[in-house]
């Protein structure tokens, strides 16, 4: 249950010491409580008048409330500490996401990245709040309570001391075996529960086959069958926490009975017996608290581990690029006479070479078409060329300067990137268009919008350019989104390198035709790297690269490729009846 990652957190020693002091204080006030209360009760039992017990009652009251005051202070300290650590993690993670870009998001999945940032860090925060205090209390409070118990009645002390290692041993066994089993069962339970979601997601498919009504009965039947399985799981899962419960109550009962029997033969008197009886539940409470919130702790522990893994990877990739800092990044400036050279470029994705030993070179504003079937490595190559992911082997050189993690920002400042689904931010249309160039005036934005054919959309929107668009507001069609992305490029004329990643693949042919007319003028006098499987674009390219399984199988001008009995030609012929 102890997590090594915890001890590497900054300031952890200070916090652990502070927690130990708090726990000692807490033990002390618990003692005060027991002393005050049992004195009062003993005196009353002896027949003393109630009015004489004021002092003891005040002691009890102050101690009882004191427990909460100590916890108050401790929680406040932990709250701040946990937040600070979480905040640091958050900043580091944000830094990672925005420096490693889509390669990280792809690796993790966009959902996971978001969840990690928002839920994961919160879980870590809760984890820190819970686990540190529980850990320290487990070792401090029982120990501090045992001392007075031994002084008051060593027999009870021995009973409680002997039970302690048993409970710890039990929890270790629980952690090792039962925990493992419970996790396995938990997984099984999840898998079973997924059946329901699976059916819901495929509900239209069922309907198409006329099966949806019948499936309702099966949902109920399956759900009931799972209930049986789940209850079996729970019998074990609940049992483990109930055993702890049993340990605690039985020990209290045992202490009470032992005390009773020894009071009979007058080997002890009421006051110490009562004090011990009040302290006993408190003694076991700390142990039981330690075992509680198992799942919340587990979630936090796992999140902490996955965040640290990402951070470590980012650090590595940044370390690797530090020595490249010496290079003068001004060389990366792209001009009419610049050269882009790709040498033996490879990229590993999941142990598999998505891009394999790709080499080519271009000089000045050239239009390069990159074609190939799905999975040929077109997108990966575009990501490498944009510096969104870093090569596993080989290099990309601009004007003989290698593109690295350290200088890629300079390169990226000159890029315009147009993916298959350009991202439309939840902001106004105008803000979306001026994304690369936030200083643009309204006229400039409007002009750019008109150039790419967005006037119709502007007229349609209730507040024109100032209407909020994107997810959750007004969604745009695929064609409209592409136009907005084009307008971005149009607005910021400084960007002289265009990266296109299948920008028209999913558009209807009429929209594609209109967009092509808008795109061609924008591509003039720029370095264009254009990945697509729509072959009609090839007529406008100066150089065509044909990719297959990550390798360049052919390259040349359209005429050259058409002449040869090439892969390109066979690619075209496979399209058969419909096109080309």
């Amino acid at each position: 249950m102890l997590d090594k990652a915890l001890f590497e957190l900054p300031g952890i020693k200070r916090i652990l010491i502070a927690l130990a002091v708090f726990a000692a204080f807490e033990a002390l006030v618990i003692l005060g409580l027991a002393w005050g209360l049992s004195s009062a009760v003993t005196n009353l039992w002896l027949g003393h008048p109630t009015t004489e017990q004021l002092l003891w009652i005040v002691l009890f009251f102050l101690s009882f409330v004191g427990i909460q005051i100590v916890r108050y202070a401790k929680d406040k300290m932990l709250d701040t500490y946990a937040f600070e650590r979480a905040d640091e993690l958050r900043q580091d993670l944000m830094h990672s996401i925005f420096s490693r870009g889509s390669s990280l998001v792809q690796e993790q999945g966009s959902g996971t990245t978001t969840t990690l940032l928002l839920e994961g860090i919160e879980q870590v925060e809760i984890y820190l709040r819970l686990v540190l205090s529980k850990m320290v209390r487990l070792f401090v409070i029982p120990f501090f309570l045992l001392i007075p118990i031994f002084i008051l009645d060593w027999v009870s002390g021995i009973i409680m001391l002997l039970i302690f290692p048993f409970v710890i041993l039990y929890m270790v066994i629980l952690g090792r075996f039962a925990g493992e089993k419970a996790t396995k069962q938990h997984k099984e339970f999840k898998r079973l529960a997924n059946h329901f979601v699976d059916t819901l997601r495929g509900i239209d498919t069922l309907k198409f086959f006329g099966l949806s009504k019948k499936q309702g009965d099966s949902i109920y039947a399956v759900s009931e069958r799972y209930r049986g399985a789940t209850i079996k799981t729970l019998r074990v899962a609940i049992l483990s926490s109930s055993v702890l419960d049993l340990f605690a109550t039985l020990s209290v009962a045992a202490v009470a009975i032992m005390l009773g029997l020894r009071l009979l033969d007058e080997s002890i008197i009421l006051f110490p017996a009562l004090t011990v009886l009040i302290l006993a539940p408190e003694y076991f409470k700390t142990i039981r608290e330690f075992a509680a919130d198992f799942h919340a702790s587990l979630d936090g522990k796992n999140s902490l581990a996955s965040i640290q893994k990402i951070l470590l990877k980012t650090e590595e990739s940044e370390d690797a690029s530090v020595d490249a800092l010496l290079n003068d990044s001004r060389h990366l400036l792209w001009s009419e006479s610049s050269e882009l050279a790709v040498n033996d470029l490879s990229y590993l994705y999941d142990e598999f070479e998505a891009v394999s030993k790709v080499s080519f070179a271009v000089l000045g504003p050239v239009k390069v078409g990159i074609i190939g079937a799905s999975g040929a490595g077109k997108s990966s190559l575009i990501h490498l060329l944009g510096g969104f992911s870093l090569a596993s082997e080989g290099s990309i050189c601009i004007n003989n300067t290698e593109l690295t993690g350290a200088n890629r920002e300079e390169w990226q400042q000159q890029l315009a990137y147009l993916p298959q689904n350009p991202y439309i931010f939840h902001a106004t249309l105008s803000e979306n268009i001026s994304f690369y160039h936030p200083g643009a005036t309204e006229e400039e934005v409007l002009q750019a919008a008109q150039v790419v054919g967005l006037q119709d959309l502007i007229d349609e929107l209730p507040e024109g350019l100032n209407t909020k668009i994107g997810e959750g507001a007004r969604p745009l069609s695929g064609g409209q989104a592409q136009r907005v992305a084009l307008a971005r490029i149009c607005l910021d004329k400084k960007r002289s390198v265009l990266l296109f990643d299948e920008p028209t693949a999913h558009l209807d042919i009429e929209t594609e035709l209109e967009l092509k007319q808008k795109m061609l003028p924008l591509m003039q006098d720029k370095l264009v790297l254009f990945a697509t499987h729509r072959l009609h674009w090839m007529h406008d390219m100066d150089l065509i690269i044909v990719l297959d399984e990550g390798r360049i199988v052919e390259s040349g001008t359209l005429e050259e490729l058409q002449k040869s009995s090439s892969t390109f030609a066979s690619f075209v012929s496979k399209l058969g009846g419909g096109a080309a």
Partner: protein
Amino acid sequence: MSKDAVYKTQHDAQQDAKDTAQNQVSAKKAGAKRTRIGVKRWITPFFKQYRGSLALALFLGVLTFVFAAALMFSSGYLISKAAEAPDNIMVIFLPVALVRIFGVGKPLLHYLERLVSHDWILRMTSKMRLGLYTVLEKDAIFFKKRYKTGDILGLLAEDIGHIQNLYLRSIFPTIVAWALYVLVIIALGFFSLWFALYMALLLAVIVFLVPLVSVLINGARQTRRKVMKNDLYEQVTDNVLGVNDWIVSGRSSEYVQAYQGSEKALRKVDSLLNTSTRRRDLILQVLFACVIISLLLWAGEEFGGSRAGIANWIAAFVLGFFPLIDAFAPLSAASIETNKYRDSIDRLGDLPSNNINEELFQGALQAPFVIECKQASFMFHDGINNVLDELDLTIQAGEKLAVLGRSGSGKSTLATLLRGDLTPTKGSITLNGIDSSKLGDSISDYVGVIQQQTYLFNTTLAENLRIGNSSATDEELWDALEQVGLSYLVNRLPDGLDTLVDEAGLRFSGGERHRIALARVLLHKVPIVILDEPTVGLDPVTEQALLNTFFTTMKDKTIIMITHHLQGVSCMDKVIFIEDGKLTLSGSPEELAKTNPFYQRLQAFDRGEY
């Protein structure tokens, strides 16, 4: 400039927060009503189910605490009695026995209580799942389309899980605590009416007033936090998806700063919540101290005055209350937690209620199958324009029809109307003279659909294929796979037909999924198949190969292919173009290629000649 932009974003966030706060006030009443509807549909009816085990669960819950209190009560009495040092050991026989019973009984009861309550909850879950499924099934085709973004179905399934928690963590503990409250008061009433009344008031502060006040104070804060967190979620999802754009724009640091600003704002609310929770716990502790001291003073007066004897009860009463703190203290947290589940209840409550079943056509249609649209118009309830506008179209048996149009032109709606999942607002759409919407589920005997995304259920390949025909033999399955060109691939899989389709590393590609969908349709043996943009996102080589398979395997069937580009169109008998719900162009592809300039232009463009 960039600095301004950051301030602007932060300012916007504050403004947004203000706006939402204002909206909340005005929307509060509507919201409360919404929640009431949700509760009425998804919470209260279930209390009436399996009343026996529900009552047992609650009874055991109460009894657990009664035993816990009784353990300390009898222990306190036991040692007081024993301290009298009576000569006869038999005097403490009964208390010793009770301590043993309660000591063993309490954990046992607790164990049973948790089992029974979970069992009840899981029974309810089965019912709720069935309920949810029935509601969604009515509207299955649409539901997914209406909520295109986000995984609404996953969300709804989770909501049921949340309601489970609502029962276990809020409703049950609250009922148990209230029952204990009543029991404590009644028990004290046997000894002293006035003291019972006094304790009723004091405990009422703990059991009712403090939870109520904390809901009043923190409920709004918690709602605000939830709104902020949701906004943050949207914002982050948005920007993580657009991360490359941020990087290329060179403005990432700007966003990172703005994000930190939002997180700080959230932290402020969190701090307020945490502080008030700590204060509440402190106040509760003071109240509990008052309860214990009151018990002590009352017991001292009632039973004290002389040594031992009835004074043995003093320790019993005082110690007996301690375990009850565990029942009363979490009440405030439990009542605040209900806020968390409100969204789930609202979301489930918003689902359409089951509508009345229309009268359906009973009986079987005979081949040949002809589809006819006569002056068919369609408009969504909330729409302004017709999605389809007075469409006339006849599709003969065995005809191959391509429907082209821009996205949003109404071509997908046409598919839904043909299958009868929607009813035309005006005009009619019929299959052999019967309104397709009147055919109900039996339409699936005549019309099959292959969608843009083929859904494969998380089970074996064979089970997925048998959705087409549950009685299909293995040979028939292999035959279908052979036809769609997958038999080679499936043969190579170690588990063959029994391969789990989603097992890691064995995911089928888009093209292969469509082939599986086709195999299902072939097994289903329908005369008419609608292809609803099935090749979007495939590369042209894969696409053409898939289309060839479609056309060869289904050459005897009517095919209605909805598409947005020209690939495969030349193999069809007829092409129609739909724009703004109207039929703008119609004819055979050869004819159009010869005579229609618009079509010629598109063709030329597709070949790259334009």
